């Protein structure tokens, strides 16, 4: 078991970044799928995709970079 506070903080940050990153990827592909089936209008789909793009570029460096 790892009791190093810095390591715990890093793994906590990584877990948050991973969650945010996965949510961003889902926010990039699920809304268009819903739009395709007629369940979501173009406007909200495009807004969610833009927000997801921002979220992805915030999360990805923490998720993909932390050793």
């Amino acid at each position, binding site marked *: 078991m790892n009791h190093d506070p810095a390591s715990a903080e890093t793994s906590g940050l990584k877990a948050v970044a991973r969650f945010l990153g996965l949510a961003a*990827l889902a926010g*990039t592909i699920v809304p268009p799928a819903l739009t395709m089936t007629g369940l979501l209008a173009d406007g909200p789909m495009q807004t969610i995709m833009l927000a997801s793009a921002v979220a992805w570029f915030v999360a990805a460096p923490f998720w993909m*970079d932390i*050793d």
Partner: protein
Amino acid sequence: MTDLVHEVEDVEESAGSEYERRRVPEQALRGPAAFWGMYAGEHTAGTEFMIGPLFVAWGADAASLIFGLLIGNLLAVLTWRYLTTVIACSERLTLYYKLERIAGPWLVKLYNLANGLLFCFLAGAMITVSATAVGQFFPPGTVTMPTFESTMPTGPAWIISCVAIGAVMTLVAMLGYGVVARVGHYAAPWMFLIFLACGLVTLGRLGSYDLWSLLTPTVEPAAGKKISFLGVVCFSWFCNAAMHLGMSDLSVLRFARKPAAGWAPAAGMFLGHYVAWICAALLLIYWVREHGVDPAQGKDPGTMVNDAVGWAGLLCVVIAGWTTANPTMYRAGLAFQGMIPAMPRKAATLLAGAVCIAAGIFPAFAMNLLSFVGLYGTVLAPVGAIIIVDHFLADAVGIPRDPAAKSGGNFNWIVLVSWLVPVAVALWLYMEKDVFASYLPLPAAIACGLLYLVLSKVAGGTPQPAGAP
């Protein structure tokens, strides 16, 4: 994913700066993960938004797009795996050093000139694609968008857009492309999903999931602009001919621990050059069927992507263009520096950037991408055939391996003749006989390899006399 970004950067930066004139040592070798990530990112570029719609403009049918692309991409992966990576893992040298050992340093300078210029035109096409996206952020009519038939700049606003985008790209490339490589790898999974999103939204708007029927052309292409099943196979096989058959990727794959890393390009081929191309093609199919756009005129990527998925799509076009144009500019700068070693790298990159911007202003390069990438492979792939003969056949047929290294020569005329004669014939066939450019890299490479073999044998199977030192 944890260490992947670092590994990818290490491989790319090492490829540009380390072990340039010796074998890569055992401790510098890398596992396959770095290569899978690198190829996936590199082949989901801004130009994919052009190539899919260009297939539609050229009247590619459903069988060509679904099965032709599958076959062509598979052949490309097999070429990488069983030629490029086998040689890379055996020799563990850069293309430039290996070529120098066969052809002498003066011929490498000539290769660098051709390579650097072609890199600039390719990066220029990426600037053009990015400019169509940036233009969407201005009021309608501010920036006149080019069509597939445009060859000249569409107006002052277009020129300013291209110069501004190109200047930023050049500045970043001058600082080194570590940051851009990093952004590119972060962006890769997201960019692929944006392509997929464009496809999904378009399917919904077209009101059909019958891909076969949607990909079947509804109008005849313009005269002289028709691509067949074989054309699509050859295009997808040889659009990266300079990298696999032309052995440019020796510089990267020499770091692979095992030849199995040669399967890694499959990530780029089947995500970027298959799924993304078909999704991008659907964008133009929608505009043709629902808005009556003439496929020969096409529609610029920025407008189509903005309409489908909004600003996230525009961001993707800009980032996809930026992250692939920057390394291309950087490599062009290195190629120019190779010609004139006294030139500082930043000055060489600035020169490359200026050529890229000049090329980007003219939509002719981006709009003729189907022909341009074929010509790119036709000029550079034959050099790879000489390396293939040197590696696999030289000992068996009794010609010297690495002849310039053995003789100390600066200039191997056999290589020059073997390279230029097939390329000249191929370019004549393209210009005078209208042969589709992607049909030419393979015959040109085979002819080059055979000529090199025969001329070397005729010359006596001994190292060629050195050129003037």
